[in-house]
């Protein structure tokens, strides 16, 4: 009985003591998104708020002013937010945190600032370039009319590719005499343009590319090349596009044709800049770029001879259009394996550094490496990624994809692949033993 009295007395004392402490009330706070010290008025972004002990995490979604509201007890918190978007045709990732959110008792006067870092990458990328050709069945010589380019939407958003253009930079071969060099300096390195030679191709009809999807562009012959060259590729596919010569009277190299299965709406058009009788894509070492430009601007660029550059040589033969750097979306600089020492960079470093090495005439293609971290981070890829990539050419003085992910096999398994974009062709591309269209 005594014991019970003691317990009751202690409890009563404790309750009394607790009841006498001051009361702590939750506080309503707001966190506002910023980027480059400017308010980022982005609706629908989830902001996380975690207490210092890591025991509680709150989430709220921003309103139209980019403000997320929380009701929390006073204390120390860390706010984080990340979101992806497409701005001006570029894939944009905003990401940031604020570890110094100190919530005091009482009403908050102003939103806490959450500064987000903006990371841009191109939405449309050159995924693969097959330009080196392969050997004919009788090994008489190389077959090189089967070139193709794959442009890929490297984002989870649908891409508008209607204004996409394809061009090449003078000189066409990396090892050719390059009159754009003054000593070791590329003379247009600090200009706002690159010299687009030959011609520039564009699409005649509106074109969208779904997320993590691609378009295949047949450069010369959009036909089944395997009919006569078994090592080649079949480009007779209704979904493929063709760099047609039919709308460009000066492109008189009529031997390039398209299979009937390719709809006329997939015939590309373009502008001839100089006197070449066909669009040129080097067998050994092209400098290929993709860009974005509306039709009117493209016509003006390619027909305004006053704005042409003639550094490469006499007018009609070597004229190049000054393609604005700001309109370049992606580029690949290729050096021929046999002529590395004689090769020169044709892209300035703010567009591309490094080169992809190509041994031509063996059916090899240059294929973009997988961004392992980003790809594995996609939740939908769980269980779908295929590893142990075996189509690299490192065993024949080539290269392989360091991610180890077999992108094409993974895509076939339903995965979404995010490719690497460092704007360094030596890091972004490897030499693939088989062109990806070679099934």
């Amino acid at each position, binding site marked *: 009985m005594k014991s019970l009295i003691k317990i009751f007395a202690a409890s009563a004392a404790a309750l009394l003591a607790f009841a006498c402490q001051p009361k702590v009330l939750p506080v309503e706070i707001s966190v506002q998104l910023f980027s480059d010290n400017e308010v980022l008025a982005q609706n629908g972004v989830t902001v996380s708020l975690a207490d210092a002990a890591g025991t509680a995490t709150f989430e709220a979604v921003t309103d139209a002013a980019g403000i997320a509201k929380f009701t929390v007890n006073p204390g120390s918190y860390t706010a984080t937010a990340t979101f992806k978007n497409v701005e001006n045709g570029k894939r944009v990732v905003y990401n940031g945190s604020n570890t110094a959110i100190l919530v005091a008792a009482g009403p908050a006067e102003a939103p806490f600032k959450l500064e987000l870092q903006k990371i841009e990458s191109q939405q449309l990328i050159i995924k693969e370039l097959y330009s080196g050709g392969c050997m004919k069945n009788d090994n008489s010589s190389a077959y090189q009319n089967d070139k193709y380019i794959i442009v890929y939407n490297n984002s989870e958003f649908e891409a508008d590719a209607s204004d996409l253009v394809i061009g090449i930079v003078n000189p066409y071969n990396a090892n050719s005499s390059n009159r754009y060099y003054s000593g070791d300096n590329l003379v247009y390195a600090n200009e706002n343009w690159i010299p687009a030679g030959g011609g520039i191709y564009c699409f005649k009809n509106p074109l969208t590319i779904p997320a993590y999807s691609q378009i295949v562009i047949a450069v010369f012959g959009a036909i089944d090349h395997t*009919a006569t060259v078994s090592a*080649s590729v079949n480009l007779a596919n209704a979904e493929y596009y063709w760099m047609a010569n039919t709308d460009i009277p000066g492109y008189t190299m009529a031997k390039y*044709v398209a299979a009937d*299965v390719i709809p006329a709406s997939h015939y590309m058009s373009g502008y001839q800049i100089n006197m070449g009788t066909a669009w040129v894509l080097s067998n050994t070492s092209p400098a290929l770029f993709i860009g974005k430009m509306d039709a009117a601007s493209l016509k003006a660029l390619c027909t305004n001879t006053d704005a042409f550059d003639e550094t490469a040589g006499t007018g009609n033969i070597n004229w190049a259009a000054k393609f604005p750097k700001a309109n370049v979306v992606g580029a690949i600089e290729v050096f021929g394996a046999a002529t590395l020492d004689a090769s020169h960079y044709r892209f300035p470093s703010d567009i591309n550094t490094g080169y992809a090495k190509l041994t031509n005439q063996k059916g090899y293609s240059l294929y973009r490496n997988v961004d392992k971290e980003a790809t594995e981070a996609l939740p939908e890829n769980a269980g779908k990624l295929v590893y142990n990539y075996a189509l690299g050419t490192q065993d024949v003085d080539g290269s392989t994809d360091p991610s180890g992910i077999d992108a094409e096999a993974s895509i076939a398994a339903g995965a979404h692949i995010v490719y690497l974009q460092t704007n360094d062709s030596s890091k972004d591309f490897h030499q693939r033993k088989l062109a990806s269209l070679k099934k």
Partner: protein
Amino acid sequence: MCGYKRLLPLLLAVLLPYVLSAQSYSVSGVVTDKNSGEPVEFATVVLQASEQWAVADEKGRFTIANIHPGKTVISTSCLGYVTDEMEIVISKDITNLKIKLAQDNLALEEAVVTAKENSNSATTSRTIDKTALEHVQMMNVSDISSLLPGGATQSNTLTSEKRFDIRAASGESGNSSFGTAVEVDGVRLSNNASYSDIKGVSTNNIASANVESVEVITGVPSVEYGDMGSGVVKINTKKGKTPWSVTMSTSPRTKQLSVGKGFGLGYSKSGAPAGVLNASLEYTRSISEPMSPYTSYQRRQMSLIYSNLLSSGVFASKPLRFSLGVTGNLGGLDNSSDPDKFLETFLRQRDNSLRANFTASWLLSLPWITNLELSASTVYSDKLTRENKNYHESVTQVALHSREQGYLMSEPFKEGAANLAVMIPAGAWYNVSAIDDRPLTSKVTLKANWARNFGAVNNKLKVGGDWNFDQNFGVGLYNENQALAPSYREYRYCDNPAMHNFAAYIEDNLMVPIGKGRLNVIAGLRNDNTYIKGSAYGLTSSLSPRFNAKWSVLDESSRRRKTLRALSFRGSWGVAVKQPSFSILYPVPSYMDINVFTSTASADNVVYRAYYVQPRTIEYNGALRWQKNHQAEFGIDTDIAGNKISLVAFYNKTIDSYMLQTDYERFKYTYTSTADVQGLPIPAGDRIYTLNPSTGVVTVNDKTGTLAPIDATNSTRKQFISKTFEDNQLSPVTRYGLEWVVEFKEIKPINTSIRVDGNFYSYRSYFSNMEAYGPTTSTGADGQPFKYIGYYYGGDGNANGKESRTVNNNITIVTRIPKVRMIISMKLESSLLKYSRSLSDRPDGIRSYSIPSRAEFLNIDGAPSIYDGESYAALFPDYFVSWDNPEPQPFLEKLKWAKENDPEMYSDLSRLVVTSNYLYQFSKDYISPYFSANFSVTKEIGDLASLSFYANNFFNNMGQVWSTKTKTYSSVSQYIPSFYYGLTLRLKF
């Protein structure tokens, strides 16, 4: 003209009294070997003043009758002997004249291994004899060009064609090599019946081992020589009784084996000589690359020359000598054994030829005629080229064979059908293409001469005529499998008419003593009449007057102990006319094949293609003039204390050079895009495309008959298409220069002589024809075919001409050791000046403008001359036409207007502006001096054998030369041959 017509009657009036009044004598004697005393059979004895001759019999005896009195040189020559010359005065019959000939070998003190100046000639002429030819181990007769003043040694492979180019350099205007006449034993080798480039004959198929001597006339030649521009090369083969000779030569690139003999055929029972038969066989194989000795040029040549003298019976007092020669060559280039080429591909180029000639010289010794000479020759060549190529196409291709204007759709090959546009299935195949080129050149010459002394004056009159004939019996380009042949058009060379040329000439050669010297004047006139049956050219007539004079002030024969031992001056002027080649008269037609439709590819890669075929060559240009060369030279020859100096300055002007011109004409056609037929209801595999030949409308037919035919939509395209034609270059090509040869007196103690020879050469030419150009293969700013054509003074090149000057000098040191019959020579070839500059000229000044940058081509006001310092240059057409407005419009004015008012027009017209590639386009280019040294040695081992060795560029100069134009160094190997060497063994028995 009138002057020429009066010349002949005047001469006859003056000379006729002498013709009828002179008394005559005879000269007889014996020709023996200087060493053995043996008679020299078949030695030819010639009296130079009267041009009378005799041939020694088996006892060395000879007699020349009916000789008019006077002083003359009696010249005696025979194969294997040094020609002997001595002066005699004929005032009575001379009997038992003893002539001793020295054998021509290295035991002689005076053996010469360089080109010898022909001191008796009134124009520049040089001879390279057997000793020199053997010493340099000539494999191609054109190699002797290196022995001319300032001549440079070239690579000695036969896998590329070589030709003579006298007083000119390669790459120059004026078709100089085409104008160099080459004769072998009087047989003219001609490229007139050729349909290839306008070039001189290749000398690759002339056997070198059988050559006895080569005479090169670089000055104004006799009017005997027609159909030429500048320079005559006379190659003389071995004729006469000789022992067996076997020659074996080797160098890393060339091997040669030859056998020859001059057979004496004895005498008939009546004592008449049966003649001499010279036979020679040569096999030569040459490769271009020792590392891959499979692609080779081979020469297999056999030559038979029969010569005889008729001196009995009716010919007893009027002997007649004649020769009949046949030479056949089988050979050419062949790469079929090259393991580096692909499988069954090959290239075989025949270089077969058959040369036949007949020459008869009849010594009439009549008061009004001395000699009558008839010669006839023919050269037939077989230059068939066969090339087997490997083809691969991933879709069906079309091969066009139509020569008619109009639309054509490709169709599968059908045996017996016209097959004008053959569809070749996709896949891989081989095809042999061939060019059958079989030119024939024939010539007949009848020539009479009349030589007399009139007191101390000697006169020789020559009258002659010739007819030459050129025809080509080849069928041109053909393919051995028409079903797989690529596009080509039949053009049968043999269907074109022959070219005939009738010429008549007269030449008088007067030798007048003046003081201690003499004056030699040669005046001649040649009239050529070229007739081409059935051609627009019809009969073309031309005159070639030529004049040579030589004043020998002091004669060496009478001044052997004086310091100034000889002095002579000579001057020449003349005109030479070059007949056109068939490539000029009947250019191979070319065609503009405009692709007007390309279908989509069916599942089995069948593609139909349609073309509009437009023939674009004008076969005849009725205004074409025959190319002419005006030549003048002045020379001084002297001997100062045994040092012989020869200087000659020359000036050549070539007018009306043959050239190819381009013009354009407007054309409109129906164009059907691939997109117009894509996705039509008729399945691609069931389609047959047809074409309306009149309208160009494409119809898609269903071969199953299920669906009705569909006419494809189309559009109209307007385009300029080019055409070409032969024309004359309006501005002349001028060349002038100075040649020197200094032969220093031999340094007796060391048996060594030094020769310095060289030349200064200057060339200048600019093109002044108004020529059309438009980038018709590019797309205009409106997205349609480019629609403007510019007309440029002197063509659309940055430069319309070039000037160059060179100074080359050679120093040859020759050491003779007659006791051991050896001769050693070292030749240092040097280029001391090598200058060139591109020109952009017109009569009223400079035709290009200096511009600050290539983009600023309109910034030309106050611009400095393009020749002042470095700058980019812009060339504008004088005027232009557009497809829609064929009226010429001033270009520059319209361009400036368009810049402000019409962006599309400005964009297009600016494509007609030609800007220079480099800042230094018109800078002077001086290439720094460079050198190369050759070493040769020849050793005779008794009379049985001789051995020659040479090493060219033996210091292996692989240095660099500096260009003041590009300001860069480059390898000297582009100017001098790489180090090479060779060895030759000759056996005589």
